[in-house]
């Protein structure tokens, strides 16, 4: 993975445009939205990655699917509600959002409960997709 990141760094330094070497980046989100800082950190790195014109996709499984639940109202806990940002991703050309069906079902969730359009994949399909990535970043 570190090698892959160096590659990106070099291409930026040498001014090579994304047209030269577009890589497939996948961000894996497995944590609930407010229990840890991971969800927010992931979102920030995803937004940064949008500036590099790479092929970015986001996968949500395990408790990560909770990040996308609609109707989050955080006034009561005094923490910033970062969930509206997922709706803005589409404006940065980040449109590939995947949720794992098994994780959704275990938690009694359906795609109707989510705040953005997503593609729901089975565990096997998602694993296969992760295997095709050039860079995988886990949160």
């Amino acid at each position: 993975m570190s090698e892959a990141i160096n590659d990106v760094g070099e291409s930026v330094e040498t001014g090579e445009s994304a047209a030269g070497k577009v890589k497939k980046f996948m961000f894996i989100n497995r944590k609930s939205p407010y229990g840890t800082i991971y969800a927010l950190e992931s979102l920030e790195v995803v937004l940064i990655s949008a500036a590099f014109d790479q092929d970015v996709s986001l996968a949500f499984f395990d408790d990560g699917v909770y990040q996308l639940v609609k109707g989050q109202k955080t006034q009561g806990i005094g923490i910033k509600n970062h969930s509206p940002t997922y709706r803005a991703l589409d404006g940065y050309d980040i449109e590939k959002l995947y949720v794992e069906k098994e994780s959704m079902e275990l938690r009694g969730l359906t795609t109707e409960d989510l705040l953005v359009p997503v593609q729901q994949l089975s565990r096997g399909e998602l694993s296969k997709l992760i295997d095709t990535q050039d860079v995988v970043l886990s949160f």
Partner: protein
Amino acid sequence: MPMLHTVNKSPFYTYTLESCLDRAREGSAVLLIEDGVYSAMRGTPIERRMVEAMKKLAIYVLGPDLEARGMTYDRVVSGVKVVDYGGFVDLAAQHNNVQSWL
């Protein structure tokens, strides 16, 4: 009154809830806070565990933590009581001691 237990972890992420429920003594109370509130939702395998636990324990869930996570009150397992911060304070005051399961 006996112990007030608080659980702040998702039941899908750690074993904390089980650990607490297996040890909490009859007549004590369990308050689900932070990511612990996911344990109070209907339609999960944890629901049955909650219903079972309520035979010997009183189960509460913190409303503001539900709302933050987009979990509406109508999705809470029946019998689990939703409390606000004032209710949290009352529970702490009513019980002899508080055990935080982290």
